[in-house]
């Protein structure tokens, strides 16, 4: 009889012992509702590789103004000066960048040598950053503050490329001999990382020697909260000041003035497998295109936080709407009866993935729209990594797909080439169309920005003509920003969030 209470008492006694295992942000000066002026931010995607710029985490470094590249992406989508104060194109493959006076967080100067070192490491990384996948850079230090960058073939978008968060310039100490990269205390931005607790918390302090002046907030306390409802809860409970990516199901619950919508470069579309199965037939693809209506999704699935799609590129790509080319010469859609007889009632396999909460709901709406047009539909919904290999192998007839249309180059050609060129690595629609390939190639070779944009829109029309992809909606991102915060950057490309001007009121 004695041992029961004893056993339980022993178990209970363990609790305070283990309570030392709570994750406390070192010192936690921010417990009292941000009275110190530090901004508390909830981010969505926990660090994959301890904030290495060669992983998903690169955007965290630019969102929190920790690391910078030679250039930055301006609001108009053009390259703007950052660590390089100016640049010139010496010939088709050579560019010269003039550096500004700047300091790394560890106190060392930003020199041409340091820039070359950083770019060389990015080029030599075992898993090359995506932004360097189609180009080879050679950087050379001319003098202390001049860097020459050469490319193997002409690259008209090199300054845009260098704005990629993956090509942030870090101090020499960031690059370990084993190939790992740590930006802790090695960036050049307005804030420096002082602590990183696993995948849960990070603390950042203002960097007083920042070349652009002193940031208004003394520091940032970052919490990673993967669950969207939990992020919204944190904001509503006053535990954080800024919460990114509020799910549309939670946006309505936020206080007035807290949700801020930003058009996103993400487009959700229905990708049709053109190489086999039902949709190898272009009249059936046309029937699917005619049946599917993205505008029905805007107010339902997205609760108003989306725009009905007008093409591959939405309002977040500011120049797209004016330069859009009308799509002509599409195949005639099969009628419902023709669809039934052609498919013979065989269900088409409609895939989507659970990682983005809206996609399964879209798939269900799309299923009904397709069924009304005579198709039989069977869904397959899984976690993305569970099905990616099958997607690339063409095991599905259709996919509800959410895709960023401006990849880390900030240039739309990269997206078109990887998704729709005959040799594209992400060509899930499996299109092989010489007119698309030509349109993409001619856009890629174009130097003049305006003409490049026109050619991109011609390529868009060429893609849409094949009905290999049916754009549904352009997503909007809802950023939750407490009414006590000002100066948060609302960036369609989601590269910046907290910067010099962000502060608590």
């Amino acid at each position, binding site marked *: 009889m004695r041992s029961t209470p004893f056993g339980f008492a022993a178990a209970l006694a363990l609790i305070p012992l283990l309570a030392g295992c709570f994750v406390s942000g070192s010192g936690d000066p921010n417990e009292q509702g941000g009275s110190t002026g530090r901004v508390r931010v909830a981010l969505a995607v926990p660090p994959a590789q301890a904030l290495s710029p060669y*992983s*998903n985490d690169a955007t965290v470094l630019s969102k929190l103004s920790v690391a910078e590249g030679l250039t930055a992406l301006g609001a108009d989508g053009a390259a703007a000066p950052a660590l390089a104060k100016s640049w010139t194109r010496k010939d088709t493959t050579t560019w010269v960048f003039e550096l500004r006076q700047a300091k790394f967080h560890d106190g060392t100067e930003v020199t041409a040598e340091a820039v070359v070192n950083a770019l060389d490491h990015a080029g030599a990384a075992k898993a090359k950053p*995506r932004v360097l996948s189609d180009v080879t850079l050679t950087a050379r230090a001319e003098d202390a503050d001049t860097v020459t960058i050469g490319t193997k073939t002409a690259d008209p978008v090199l300054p845009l490329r260098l704005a990629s968060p993956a090509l942030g310039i870090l101090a020499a100490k960031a690059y370990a001999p084993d190939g790992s990269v740590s930006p802790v205390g090695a960036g050049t931005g307005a804030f420096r990382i002082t602590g990183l607790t696993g995948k849960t918390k990070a603390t950042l302090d203002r960097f007083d020697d920042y070349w652009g002046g002193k940031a208004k907030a003394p520091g940032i306390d970052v919490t990673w909260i993967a669950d969207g*409802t*939990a992020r919204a809860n944190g904001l509503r*409970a006053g535990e954080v000041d800024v919460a990114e990516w509020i799910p549309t199901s939670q946006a309505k619950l936020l206080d007035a003035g807290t949700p801020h919508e930003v058009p996103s470069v993400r487009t959700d579309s229905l990708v049709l497998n053109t190489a086999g199965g039902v949709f190898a037939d272009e009249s059936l693809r046309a029937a699917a295109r005619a049946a599917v209506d993205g505008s029905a999704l805007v*107010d339902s*699935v997205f609760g108003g936080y989306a725009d009905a799609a007008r093409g591959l590129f939405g309002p977040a790509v500011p120049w797209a709407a004016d330069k859009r080319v009308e799509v002509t010469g599409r195949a005639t859609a099969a009628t419902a009866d023709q669809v039934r007889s052609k498919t013979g009632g065989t269900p088409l396999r409609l895939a989507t993935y659970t990682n983005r909460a809206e996609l399964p709901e879209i798939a269900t709406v799309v299923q009904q729209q397709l069924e009304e047009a005579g198709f039989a539909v069977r869904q397959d919904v*899984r976690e993305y990594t569970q099905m990616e290999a099958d997607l690339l192998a063409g095991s599905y007839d259709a996919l509800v797909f959410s895709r960023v249309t401006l990849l*880390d180059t900030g240039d739309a050609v990269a997206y078109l080439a990887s998704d729709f060129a005959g040799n594209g690595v992400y060509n899930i629609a499996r299109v092989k169309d010489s007119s698309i390939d030509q349109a993409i190639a001619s856009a890629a070779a174009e130097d003049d920005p305006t003409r490049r944009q026109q050619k991109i829109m011609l390529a868009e029309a060429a893609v849409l003509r094949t009905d290999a992809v049916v754009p549904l909606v352009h997503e909007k991102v809802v950023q939750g920003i407490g009414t006590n915060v000002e100066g948060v950057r609302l960036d369609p490309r989601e590269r910046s969030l907290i910067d010099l001007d962000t502060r608590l009121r």
Partner: protein
Amino acid sequence: MTSTKSAGAAARPHRWAAGAGRVVAGTTLLTAVTLLPWLSGTDPALTVLRARSADQDPTPAQLAAVREQLGLDEGPFTHLARWLGGLPRGDAGTSWVSGEPVLPQVASAFAVSTTLMLGALVVTLVVAALVSARTLRLGSRQEPPPGRPGTGAAFLAALPKFLLAALLATVFGVWLGWFPSSGWAGPASMVLPALALGVPSGAMIGGLVDQSLPAAFTEPWVRTWHACGFRPGRIALRALRGTVAGVLPQFLPTVVALVGGAVAVEKVFNIPGLGRLALDAAIAQDLPPLQTATLALALLGVAAGLLVQALRHALLGPALRDGGLAAPRRSAVRPPRSTRWVAGLCALTLLALVVAGSLRDPLHVDTAARLLPPSAAHPLGTDALGRDLLARLGHGALRTASLALAVTAVSVVAGLLLGLAGRVAAGLTEVMSTLPAVLVGLLTTAVAGPSVWGAAAAVCLVGWTPYAAQTAALSEQERASGHVLASISCGAGPTHLLRRHLLPAVLPAVLRNALLRLPTAVLVLASLGFLGLGEQPPTPEWGRLLAENQPYLELAPWTVLGSAGALVLLSVLAMSGAALGRRKA
């Protein structure tokens, strides 16, 4: 004197068998986990690349680089050997995704999860005590037991933990602000998740105690003690000893398993626990953390199993060894009249739901009728896509209930067989009870591919452990009771023992346990959907209804109320129906 000696000699091979069983079970499990990337047919280089960077193009060159970096071409066994070789040095390898040492990560996640589990244990004990308090009080005074069919416990045990978690986070975290809505920053962050995990577990444990207590109070000694003027408190404690000893093994799959199996609650409260770590590692096929987490869970299972065994032996004392346990009389409880009413009402409501729902279209999407509150046109309201919730509930009822019953039946049979197999199977039970169902789901997908039956198979593979643990405990107690020893000395064979003594002693309790766990089976089945296991959307199914409407809990509470209510009804019906059936038998 002689009897003690022979018992001691018999105990030694038992201990050996149990130890060997543990080692074999643990080794098999670790090997299966190690083989995951090679079995799954999904290139681990691709999943690792994806976990590192979402927009990285999966070019052959990139994949080759990852493969070379991780040494994937060396095959699974080289990896296993290297990982095992590092363990004695305290080196569990580095994560394939992050490149960081695994041991500190797993150790901190394990500590977090264990702390949370201990918090949930406290809640469990309190809730269990509350659930069984009345029966205990009445029984100890020799008053007729209340004979409730356990509807209250069934009600609480049927509450989905993730829904409870979301509700608590909203009410006490956001609205009232009494506790942090998420995070893991101090003891205050522990309260809400511990409640979300502990209340249903406590109801389950309490329900089991509550139902075995009346039988304990019919044992002959109770009347003697009462007549001798022992205080009710002492009688209650004595009766609890035997009952708790039978229920104690349930703590392993119900509470200790929360260390790795609380993924949904960890997500809602953003707790950096072991469940999430193991799940992320499994999805990315990041082997070193996955192996280490599995090993930690298996060791935890064995340690908890040994603790439970020691506690039971301490509770029952030498009587267990020497065959001195009293024989409880069975089915002494008469359910009150109200039980029939409760059962009838539940059955009628469910029937009405099914009939009314079947006449409607569960798949028709009407984006204009989104999230409508209950009305004449939509008696239970509509979901986020404007589908009629009554229709979805009604159409899902049969599929959900029959699948859950089938899975539970298979688990019970497997549990009975393995539980009666003796100490050899104990190791397997311990190792498997702490294993999250998701991990088994992934292994099932790897071997057999995603399928409708995959989810059922995966749930069966882990679902038998509570019944095996219970069977083993109860049959051990039964074997040690005087009347069994008497029949053995009268020459009874093993078949006679099994049919006349063991099964009648074990089966009713196991069945009650299974009915209490029925809603859990529904929820676990649905939780594997994201692996492509089970029915695919938009097929209505109760677990999916709950999961897909969880985000709308606050905005449109009726979207989850219907399915949560139906689950509770099913559970209460099962319990009260069983109570009625028992009386007739």
